[in-house]
């Protein structure tokens, strides 16, 4: 089952971290560009809401989710939590934090900025902070995030955006 490979679970150390960490460090270094592209993309998603509704969101769910998984997996090492907040986390996917923290780093970050749990991995939130400094709307990192909804795991957050359920930036008001 491919989903098991990507599913987010706060279970500590996970295989494949090294490749993922390299991807994440790339996306954080290009946070500004990605932010720009994401803002554009979000507008497209919202604008195409009616068309997508006409085709049927249910029918689109599986194919769109797999495209989203492939694209965001490659760019951000995305874990498909289904409620994307990348724009509020400096383009560093917070679901790669072994504790699944969505509001900032824990108190255990090592002096060299690596993760308390996985000494090989840079802390997701140290990267998130660096990314947010590069972004135009990096201040969004200051916004408190609500608890994650575990039912949305593996679902497409792009479709959720075009349904008007949440914004790609995780903010209530959209961008």
């Amino acid at each position, binding site marked *: 089952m491919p989903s098991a490979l990507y599913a987010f679970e*706060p*279970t*500590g*150390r996970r295989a494949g971290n090294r490749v993922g960490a390299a991807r994440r460090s790339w996306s954080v270094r290009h946070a500004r560009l990605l932010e720009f592209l994401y803002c554009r993309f979000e507008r497209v998603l919202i604008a195409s809401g009616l068309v997508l509704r006409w085709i049927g969101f249910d029918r689109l769910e599986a194919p769109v989710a797999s495209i989203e998984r492939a694209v965001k997996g490659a760019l951000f090492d995305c874990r498909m939590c289904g409620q994307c907040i990348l724009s*509020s986390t400096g383009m560093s996917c917070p679901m790669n934090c*072994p*504790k*699944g*923290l*969505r*509001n*900032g*780093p*824990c*108190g*255990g*970050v*090592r*002096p060299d*900025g690596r993760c*308390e*749990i996985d000494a090989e991995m840079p*802390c997701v*939130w*140290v990267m998130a*902070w*660096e990314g947010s400094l590069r972004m*135009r*709307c990096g*201040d*969004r*990192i*200051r*916004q*408190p*995030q*609500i*608890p*994650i909804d*575990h039912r949305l795991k593996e679902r497409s957050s792009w479709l959720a955006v075009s349904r008007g359920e949440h914004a790609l930036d995780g*903010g209530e*008001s959209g*961008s």
Partner: protein
Amino acid sequence: MNQPQADVARHLDAAQFEAGQVSAGRLEHVLRRGEFAVTAELDPPDSADPKDVFDRATLFGSAVDAINATDGSGANCHMSSVAMCALLIRAGYEPILQISCRDYNRIAIQGNVLGAAAMGVSNVLCLTGDGVQAGDHPEAKPVFDLDSVSLLGAIKRMRDERMFLSGRKITSPPRLFLGAAENPFAPPFEFRPLRLAKKVAAGAQFVQTQFCFDVPMLRAFMERIRDLGIDQSCYILVGTGPLSSVRTARWMRRHVPGVHIPDSVIARLEGARDQRAEGRQLCIEIIQEVREIPGVAGVHVMAYRQTQFVPEIVHESGVLKGRAGGMHCPAIGASSD
């Protein structure tokens, strides 16, 4: 696009300083009165004997305002925080319930909060929790359903809006003084104060920090805290504790997540004839220095396996200024079975 900033600021303004005390507890009362508060951590027993809790609490004498009942600290299994709180209340002490996101989901947490409040708990400290790999059950499933910020929000909602996260009504809300932890000594340093602001916005009314062995670093942190006005809406208690030897210091540096001990401290212990006494002296000096930093409202003493020295440390530091801490009731505490 500075919506988030506005959000945080609005919450900071709406702090409940003037609104009166939210809990019936001593800790909140002491802090609101502007006294320098002292809290301490109780070593949790690995037993089912209540006497073990009473005996340890007695060691604090009248030196502390509230006692932290740790919740599986370091991811090691001990008596539960809720149970220790209940026992401490029975013996006349004021406990601080600790909840770590590592071990429970939102259903268990909210149930525990109601139960603890029903038993008379007035304070709760919301923590992320160390990873399971740090403790004696590294094979356990880490839960982390909520994080410390959303945990604060959940309990605040239970208290102020009288409802569970689900929106279901609570008939009698828990009156709790809400606390959080922060580590000014771990990266990303510039983000730490903003993260604390997030916690305050989510509901934190007091903060206990990680061990402070580096006062200049704390000063820099506090400066930023004052710039952001966080000290105006949240009481900050600085974590301290005596190091028993240079070996312990080195061990902590390597094995306890998030503990920063500068080389100068190691060198000072190493050069001392009586390392244990030097560790206590250092702790006293740090308490005295920290007390002078504007915005610091108290200290939190973590004296693992050195609880008996806590009264001495607190009294010698002079922070209580002659006032008696504690809700110590010797009649109950000493004679309990």
